[in-house]
């Protein structure tokens, strides 16, 4: 039975192990409050989609428990499904149906009364800017239009909780911004709780009130974007010498101000030790050594730095590792 005082989404020690496969989700604890946008950030293969599939009842967990809208995801699947909307990783649409036909199809499956189906469908199509294309077959839609239709379909039964699994992957910047605006409007107008998975740092930073960083099936950091950045705390300085042979000396100078961190191979990067170190003091030290630089920049901590600090690799690097691991797994064994 639904507990009205419960959080919108709660998970405790959630685990999913695939047959002959990895521990895709490895003991996740989550709590997402009503009306909150929670960003679930991680590279490909980190366990984001597996978590969403479990929370949306499409995949039973191997261990652990979770409640969505106050309902147990294993014992009360139908109640969970009637409380949530989901736009999963693929914009799963029928290329032979029109946008309007999709809306009516989805509305009928949710047993929405006939007279309301047309009205609600048309309103949502208008809301996501697809009224003009409503009677065109979806096969001819752009990626952004498909994503917007997917979002509208997820909202047809007026769910309280919305799961968006990498909603902007593969979209051009304009379509991405349009979708962000729509999600922000939904939260502001209707108080919908949004569980958003993404591999884009910027998306998590802009949309989410709180972020969980997932890597190899575990949540490695959680908090508001500002809290997470504050955990890293200190800015970094990057310098690229004018003469490449000066790289060693520039590195030595920079290391007086903080510990080295990975950066461009053409230059040196250090995370500042704190105290009263400023960019001006770095400039003075370089000048005192008669070193000229082509590029000198102070970076405030970003979510990318947070990811690097928590996992020891960049988000892009983690994605490459995952792709490499998949390629290795697919490679035939030499005789």
């Amino acid at each position, binding site marked *: 039975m639904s507990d009205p005082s419960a959080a919108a989404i709660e998970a405790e020690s959630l685990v999913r192990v695939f047959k002959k496969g990895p521990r895709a989700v490895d003991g996740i604890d989550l709590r997402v409050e009503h009306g909150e946008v929670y960003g679930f950030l991680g590279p490909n293969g980190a366990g984001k989609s597996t978590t969403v599939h479990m929370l*949306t*009842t*499409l*995949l*039973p967990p191997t261990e652990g428990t979770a409640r969505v809208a106050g309902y147990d*995801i*294993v*014992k009360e*699947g*139908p109640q*969970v*499904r*009637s409380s*949530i909307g*989901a736009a*999963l*990783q*693929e914009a*799963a*649409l*029928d290329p*032979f*149906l029109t946008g309007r*036909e999709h809306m009516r*199809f*989805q509305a*009928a*499956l*949710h*047993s929405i009364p006939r007279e309301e189906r047309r009205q609600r469908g048309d309103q949502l199509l208008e809301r996501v800017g697809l009224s003009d294309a409503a009677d065109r*077959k979806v096969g001819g839609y752009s990626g952004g239009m498909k994503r917007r239709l997917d979002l509208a*379909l997820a909202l047809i039964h007026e769910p309280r909780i919305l799961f968006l699994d990498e909603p902007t992957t593969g979209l051009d910047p304009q379509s991405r911004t349009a979708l962000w605006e729509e999600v922000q409007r939904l939260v502001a107008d209707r108080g919908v709780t949004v569980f958003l998975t993404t591999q884009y740092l910027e998306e998590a930073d802009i949309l989410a009130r709180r972020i969980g960083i997932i890597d190899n099936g575990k949540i490695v950091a959680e908090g508001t974007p500002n809290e997470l950045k504050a955990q890293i705390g200190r800015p970094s300085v990057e310098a690229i010498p004018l003469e490449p042979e000066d790289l060693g000396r520039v590195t030595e100078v920079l290391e007086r101000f903080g510990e080295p961190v990975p950066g461009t191979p053409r230059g040196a990067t250090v995370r500042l030790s704190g105290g009263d170190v400023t960019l001006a003091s770095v400039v003075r030290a370089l000048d005192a050594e008669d070193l000229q630089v082509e590029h000198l920049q102070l970076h405030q901590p970003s979510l990318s730095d947070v990811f690097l600090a928590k996992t020891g690799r960049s988000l892009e690097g983690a994605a490459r590792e995952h792709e490499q691991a998949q390629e290795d797994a697919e490679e035939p064994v030499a005789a």
Partner: protein
Amino acid sequence: MNAALALQIGTVARRSIVRTMRQPAMVVPALVFPLLLLSINSGGLHAATRLPGFPTDSYLTFALGLTFVQGAMFAAMSAGTNVAMDIETGFFNRLSLTPLRRVALLLGQLSGVVVLALIQATTFLVVGLTAGAGLKAGPLGVPVIVAISLLTTLGFGSIGAFVALRTGSGETVQGLFPLFFATLFLSSMALPRNVIEIHWFRTVATWNPVSYMLEGIRSLLIDGWNGEALALGFLASGGLALVGLVAASSALKTRMVRT
């Protein structure tokens, strides 16, 4: 059946019919190829009617029965491919997230193929009879031919859906086509069983349920009302439909694993 279930079946069926009819590449071959084979066979194999024991002097009438079963096999490909496409594109997950019941999904999905079968059966009958084929059972035989034809299509269609649900692959469904055709060739497709002289072939054709589907339809075209042939025809088609539906239903349970 309650109203919600009826609405679900109707909704899925409507989508299935609409998407089937919007794919000419699925509809046209299912109509054209059986008719093409009918015209080739009825012209080229006419001499077979002179064999002792051949039941009619019109090979066109004899071969017309084949078009319905052949059409059913084409339609099965359509059913299986549509289900596989839904799995491959993730549309199946969308359906799984709604209150849709499994039985509604299966019956709804197969409705598209049954409508295609109705169009096929009507077309084959009109073309065949216009070209001079006989219909000994008279006008009342038409709905019976259509009924066997629909049941046969449902049988092959549910086998296609079963393979799609088990594998989630459209390519594997396409791989069924040669298998279906081999089954067709090893039946009484080209000759009645009593005139097949090769012993092993006659034995295989006798054990092959496709022979009885063909013979049930042919009996109405050639003999009139033959109770035994009709009963065996309905039994073979109905049995295949039952086996196919049970298998597809079980595969759907595994595929639609929502909690």
